[in-house]
């Protein structure tokens, strides 16, 4: 494979385009609403109407507005149709003939769509995730080619550093710095690992990226491998995402067949292979040291750091671990330049962030916005507020490691630092909206139950502390607790936060702490008065 062959594939793919394209969303959300049947019926209708030369029916990734699925986008008229059923789908051909199909039309001028800024999701909903040619037609693998042919590894790292990209898994560590640490570490073998163990309940960004545009992740990984000098990559995916696994397998196979993965990529000395590893349902495996243990086929328990994976990771070799979204940003940074990327976002948080907007909000789905967009814009403008005109109470970000931002503080700009100041975290990007019907103590207990079940049991503060905190929260919820129990709960939060081994335990108290900070009255109104114990020593009289 060389540049000419790559361009030839692109040309051929573009030349085969037809005047009309019906893009059918086949990401998990729409698929569960029956979009595969929609696609089949559309294909049949196109064939029956003899429109095969005019109309292409293309399977694409996420079209964002999951709550209205199955979604079909019609090009070039740029119209989105929602709730398309297998029976009603053939009516879409009316549009091709110039008529108006009797189907519900989505409002593409709604802020939900117009406020989005796509970098990571640029190909999502456009390319066919099951065909590498479709990705190449969208300038895919061009960045990898240019990197390995025209740039030194050190220049690639320089570009990533200058872009200001930070880890999208939640912690926000500067990606360029991580890459340069791995590049500097000695050792013949190095590894690149993609963390696709998206365990936070209420988060589906990584799943959508993998289902909609798996090649961008592979390209990002290959560029990283070139930059740090690795030859082997692993993608660790959750077993709960069967579609993402299938599409990744397909993508790896296609890239290997074209020689984009393998030995001597684009005629350079770079050899790079990617292997898929399927998780088995353990939240703690999202923690990098636990993830590596799991890749090695062991129980996914974390270990103390240092040594950091960048120095001693998989089988003791220097290992670069980045999140799905982080890798997906890399090709765009190299294609458009670091300055372009650095011009988007806020001073300390560059670029965009993908959020999974869900919960008590009208428009649920996938959004990508520049860093620094306010929570209010996201929830009220884009999300359309709570259904039925209910008042929004809080927004939960960061899953079980994050916290709840109350409605009054929704003017906060979303970036790593601002959310941390409010006691929440950016997290991987789950955003759950809660309205008046949501009980905050119940939410805190929900997350504590999660952490209690998912604690790996290696360190005592987390293993025993989460059980105790869960017990106390239940006691409060059932109205059996006193002020003393609340004090114990706060004390435990502090202890577990500061003494746990890994991120799971260290952040487990966050949902409790943040709800205590902003919704303390909900706890206090459940407390019952302290029982007065008769004093053992009676005052002596007379």
């Amino acid at each position, binding site marked *: 494979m060389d540049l000419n062959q790559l361009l030839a594939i692109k040309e051929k793919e573009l030349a085969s385009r037809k005047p009309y394209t019906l893009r059918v969303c086949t990401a998990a959300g729409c698929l569960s609403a029956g979009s595969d049947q929609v696609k089949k019926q559309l294909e049949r209708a196109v064939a029956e109407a003899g429109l095969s030369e005019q109309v292409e029916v293309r399977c694409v990734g996420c079209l964002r507005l*999951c709550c209205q699925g199955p979604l079909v986008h019609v090009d070039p008229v740029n119209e989105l149709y929602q709730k398309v059923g297998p029976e009603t789908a053939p009516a879409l051909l009316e549009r091709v003939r110039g008529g108006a199909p009797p189907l519900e039309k989505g409002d593409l001028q709604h802020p939900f769509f117009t406020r989005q800024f796509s970098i990571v999701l640029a190909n999502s909903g456009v390319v066919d995730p099951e065909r590498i040619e479709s990705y190449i037609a969208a300038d895919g693998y061009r960045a990898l080619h240019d990197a390995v042919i025209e740039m030194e590894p050190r220049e690639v790292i320089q570009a990533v550093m200058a872009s200001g990209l930070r880890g999208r898994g939640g912690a926000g560590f500067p990606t360029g710095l991580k890459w340069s640490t791995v590049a500097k570490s000695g050792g013949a073998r190095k590894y690149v690992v993609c963390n696709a163990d998206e365990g936070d*309940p209420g*988060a589906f960004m990584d799943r959508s990226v993998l289902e909609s545009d798996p090649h961008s992740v592979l390209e990002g990984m290959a560029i990283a491998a070139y930059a740090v000098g690795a030859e082997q990559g692993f993608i660790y995916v959750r077993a*709960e995402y069967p579609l993402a696994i299938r599409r990744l397998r397909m993508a790896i196979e296609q890239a290997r067949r074209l020689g984009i993965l393998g030995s001597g990529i684009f005629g350079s000395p770079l050899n790079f292979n990617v292997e898929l590893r399927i998780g088995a349902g353990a939240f703690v495996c999202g923690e990098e040291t636990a993830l590596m243990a799991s890749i090695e*086929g062991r129980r996914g328990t974390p270990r103390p750091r240092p040594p950091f994976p960048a120095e001693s990771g998989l089988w003791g070799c220097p290992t670069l671990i980045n999140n799905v979204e982080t890798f997906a940003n890399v090709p765009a940074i190299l294609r458009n330049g670091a300055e372009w990327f650095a011009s988007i976002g806020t001073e300390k948080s560059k670029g965009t962030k993908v959020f999974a907007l*869900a919960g*008590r909000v009208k428009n*649920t789905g996938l959004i990508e916005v520049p860093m620094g967009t306010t929570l209010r814009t996201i929830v009220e403008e884009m999300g359309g507020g709570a259904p039925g005109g209910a008042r929004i109470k809080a927004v939960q970000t960061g899953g079980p490691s994050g916290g709840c931002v109350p409605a009054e503080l929704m003017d906060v700009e979303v970036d790593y630092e601002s959310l941390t100041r409010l006691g929440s975290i950016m997290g991987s990007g789950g955003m*759950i909206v809660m309205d008046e019907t949501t009980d905050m103590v119940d939410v805190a207990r929900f997350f504590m139950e999660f952490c209690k079940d998912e604690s790996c049991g290696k360190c005592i503060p987390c293993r025993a502390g989460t059980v105790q905190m869960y017990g106390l929260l239940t006691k409060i919820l059932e109205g059996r607790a006193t002020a003393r129990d609340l004090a114990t709960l706060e004390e435990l939060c502090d202890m577990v936060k500061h003494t746990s081994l890994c991120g799971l335990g260290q952040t487990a108290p966050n949902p409790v702490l943040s709800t205590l900070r902003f919704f303390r009255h909900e706890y206090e109104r459940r407390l019952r008065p302290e029982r007065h114990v008769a004093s053992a020593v009676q005052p002596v009289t007379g």
Partner: protein
Amino acid sequence: MIATLGVPKRKRVREALAHASGDKRFKILEAHMKKYQHRHDALIEILHKAQELFGYLEDDLLLFVAHRLRLPPSRVYGVATFYHFFRLKPKGEHTCVVCMGTACYVKGADKILAAIERFAGVRAGETTPDGRVSVLTARCIGACGIAPAVVYDGNVAPHQTPDSAVATIQTWMSHGS
């Protein structure tokens, strides 16, 4: 596996291997191990395959894997019990997985689960005595945009209610009886 502790190890392994002979599924599993060159780090992949073939991981199966990969049975058992995805008991004819992710939870997944549990007469994680339906919960299936979601026999169903869930279970339980 606890129940077998009293039996000498060598005898136990011999029994497990005898059990394995003649079953085609073990052949497929061995081919899979070969694909990974019996590498120890592929243990989780191999357990995935074993569960896919057999439905669940019984003691003999774990012993077989341990023997073939030259790993101590404790290591294999340890891994199999650590991860939620691996089942050590057989599951029902049908499975119903209620997603308990945050988005589903705030939209009433707990009520759906309670309705199913009441109707089927079993708790989450259990199978009905007639072996027809297993009721399970998931941490989050990532279908938050269509919450609350329930997975019936591998198919994700969007926007569920306690009534719609019970209706589906009902068709399973009454079917064929």
